C-alpha cells in the first residue's frame, strides 16, 4: 500500500517546517550576541517604533557663529532638555585633529555657548574635555582651535581625556562582547551629564559623524593607544552603540553651522549649512541630522542598528523649531572604503 498524506497533515508539516526554518534563521542571526540579547534588542526596537513617545529634536537656522548663543537658548528650551542645576557636566566637543584649511573640529563659539548656557542654568561644575585620536596631546589642538581662549575667559578647565586617570567599567546592554570592560576617564565616569557637541560631517568609516560617533573621543589613549584601534577591531558600530549605552546620560548640541562633506572626518569640504540641532536622544538627533544631510539613516550602519535595537528613540521623532525643509542639504558622500 502506498503511503498517503492528507491535505491537513501536509499543511501541519509545512507549518512546522516553516517555524523550524524561522527559528533556525533567528538562531543564526542571534548567534553573535546570544539569543536573549537579540530578542531583547528586537523587542525594544519594536517598542520604540510602535509604543514609545517620540523623541524631541529642536532645529534652528543659525547662519553664523555670532548667532549661536541666542539660537541655543531657544533650542534648549524647545527640546525639553534636562535640568542641569547642581549637576556635574562634561562638555565633549570634537577635537579629532587639526589639518589646516579643513573644518574638522567643533567651533569654539558653539562650545562657548554651551558652557554659558550650562552656567546660566546652574550647573554645579562644568569641564570641557576630549581625547584626540591622532594627537598625543590635546592642548595644542585646544589652543590652535581657539578653544583655549574661550575657556580661559570663562574660567572653565579643559581635561585631556586621554590622560584622565582611566578606570574599568562594564560595557552595558550586550555590546562589545569581546571586550566586556572598557577603561574610561575619571571625568567621564563622574559626570552627571555629558553634552556631546560634535561637528556635523561625513565620515569615511562610519558614514556620518555626529553626536554618537563623537563619543569615540572619550576612550583614553593612555590605555588603548592613538588612534583608538580597539574601537575598529571590535567594530565601529558596536563600539559606538556600546559607548552610548555605557556612558552617563548624554545629550547633544550639533555644530552644523559649517559642516563637512566628502572626505570626512579630516579632509572634507566645508558646507555653509547654518544648522544647529539640539536633543536629549542622541539617536534621534543623528537620524535627523542624517536626513538633513541628504543621507538615508538606514544606510548608515550604526544608525540602522541603533534603530533596530532601540538604542534611543530614532524611529519616531518630533521636530521643533525651524522647519526641516529650510535646512535640507545634500552632502557629498565620503569616498568608498
Amino acid at each position, binding site marked *: 500500500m502506498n503511503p498517503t498524506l492528507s491535505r491537513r497533515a501536509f499543511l501541519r508539516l509545512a507549518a512546522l517546517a516553516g517555524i523550524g526554518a524561522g527559528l533556525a534563521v533567528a538562531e543564526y542571526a542571534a548567534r553573535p550576541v546570544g539569543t536573549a540579547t537579540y530578542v531583547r534588542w528586537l523587542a525594544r526596537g519594536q517598542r520604540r517604533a510602535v509604543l514609545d513617545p517620540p523623541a524631541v529634536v529642536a532645529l534652528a537656522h543659525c547662519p553664523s557663529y555670532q548667532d549661536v548663543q541666542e539660537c541655543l537658548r531657544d533650542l534648549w528650551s524647545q527640546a525639553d532638555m534636562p535640568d542641569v542645576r547642581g549637576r556635574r557636566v562634561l562638555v565633549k566637543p570634537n577635537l579629532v585633529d587639526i589639518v589646516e584649511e579643513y573644518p574638522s573640529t567643533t567651533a569654539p563659539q558653539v562650545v562657548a555657548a554651551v558652557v554659558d548656557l550650562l552656567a546660566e542654568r546652574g550647573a554645579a561644575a562644568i569641564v570641557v574635555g576630549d581625547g584626540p585620536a*591622532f*594627537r598625543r596631546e590635546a592642548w595644542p589642538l585646544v589652543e590652535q582651535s581657539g578653544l583655549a581662549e574661550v575657556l580661559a575667559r570663562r574660567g572653565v578647565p579643559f581635561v585631556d581625556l586621554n590622560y584622565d586617570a*582611566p578606570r574599568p567599567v562594564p560595557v552595558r546592554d550586550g555590546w562589545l562582547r569581546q571586550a566586556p570592560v572598557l577603561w574610561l576617564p575619571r571625568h567621564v565616569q563622574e559626570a552627571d551629564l555629558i553634552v556631546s557637541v560634535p561637528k556635523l560631517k561625513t565620515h569615511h568609516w562610519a558614514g556620518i559623524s555626529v553626536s554618537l560617533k563623537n563619543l569615540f573621543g572619550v576612550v583614553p589613549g*593612555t590605555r588603548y*593607544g592613538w588612534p583608538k584601534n580597539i574601537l575598529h577591531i571590535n567594530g565601529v558600530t558596536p563600539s559606538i552603540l556600546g559607548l552610548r549605552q555605557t556612558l552617563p546620560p548624554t545629550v547633544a548640541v550639533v555644530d552644523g553651522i559649517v559642516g563637512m562633506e566628502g572626505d570626512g572626518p579630516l579632509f572634507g569640504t566645508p558646507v555653509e549649512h547654518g544648522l544647529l540641532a539640539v536633543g536629549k536622544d542622541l539617536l534621534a538627533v543623528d537620524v535627523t541630522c542624517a536626513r538633513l544631510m541628504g543621507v538615508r539613516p538606514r544606510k548608515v550602519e550604526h544608525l540602522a542598528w541603533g534603530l533596530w535595537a532601540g538604542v534611543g528613540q530614532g524611529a519616531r521623532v518630533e521636530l521643533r523649531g525651524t522647519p526641516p525643509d529650510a535646512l535640507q542639504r545634500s552632502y557629498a558622500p565620503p569616498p568608498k572604503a
Partner: protein
Amino acid sequence: MREVVRQGLKFLTGAQNDDGGWGYSPEMPSAVEPTCAVLLALSTLSAGETARQRAVGWLWRAYHEDGSWGIAPDDPEGGWQTAWAVLALTRAGEPPEKLAASVEWLLSVKTLRFTDDELQRDIERILDIDPALRGWPWLPGQASWVEPTALTMLALAAGPFAPRAAERLAEAVQYLNDRRCRAGGWNVGNPVMLGAPLPPRAHPTAWALMALNAVAPEAILPRDVAALKEEMHRDGGTSALALGLMALAHLGQDDGEARRRLVAAQRDDGSWEHNPYHTALALMGLRGGRL
C-alpha cells in the same frame, strides 16, 4: 638651564606617589608609562637615586606573570607599556635575565597581519601600505602603529636582546620605511587614507627617527628630519618639542628655538603641565637625553 633642570627634578621627586610610581599628574595613581619616563629621565640625569630604586620596585610589582605590563598593576591586559618597562628597567641597570620573559612577550605578541590576496589589494588601495609587514601594536591582536613599533625597537635595541630580535627588528625597519609619509616623517600609522596623503606628525616622527637611529640609521632620509623640525613647531606642545629635541639629539642636531619654547613653557612648580610624564620628556629633551 641648570635652574630649569633643578626645578624640574624637584617637581618630579615631589610628585612620586607613596607606592614609588608616578601618575600622569601628582594627583593620579601610578601608571607604567609616566613611571618609566621619569625613571629614564632620572637615569639620564643621574639624579634621584632613592626615587629610582622605589620606581624600579613599583614597576616589578606591576609586572604580569607572562612578562608584560599594562597601564597599571590592576590592568590584566599587557600592552605597549611593556616596551617602556623593558627600556626603562634596562637603562636603570636591571639584569637582562630578569627581562627575558618580557622580551619574549614583545617578540610573540599577536599582531594583525594580512596575507589574504584580495584583502591585501583592498588595504593597499585604501591605505597604500604593505599589510603583510609587522611592526608592533598598542595592544595584542591589533594592527601595527608607528609609535609602539618604534618604542619596542628602542627597547629591544637597548639591552643585549638585539640578536634574539634581529628578524623582527629588520621587519620593523621595513615597516617604518613602508609607512613613511610622502613628504617625509610619519603619521600615526598609514601614510595615505583613501587616496589623501596624510601629513607627518611630530610624535610618531620623533619616535621613528630615534628607533631607526638605533637600529638602521642608514634608513633615515633628510626629508624625515626636515618634517620633524617643521612638525614639532607646528604642534608646539610640550611632548612634541621634547621628543623632537630628543630625536635631534640622537642625530647629533639641536634646535635652539624649540629649546627656548620648551623652557618658556615650564610652570612655576617646575613642571611641564603639572604632568610627570611631560616633565620627564621635557628634561630629557633639554638635556639632550638619549633613549
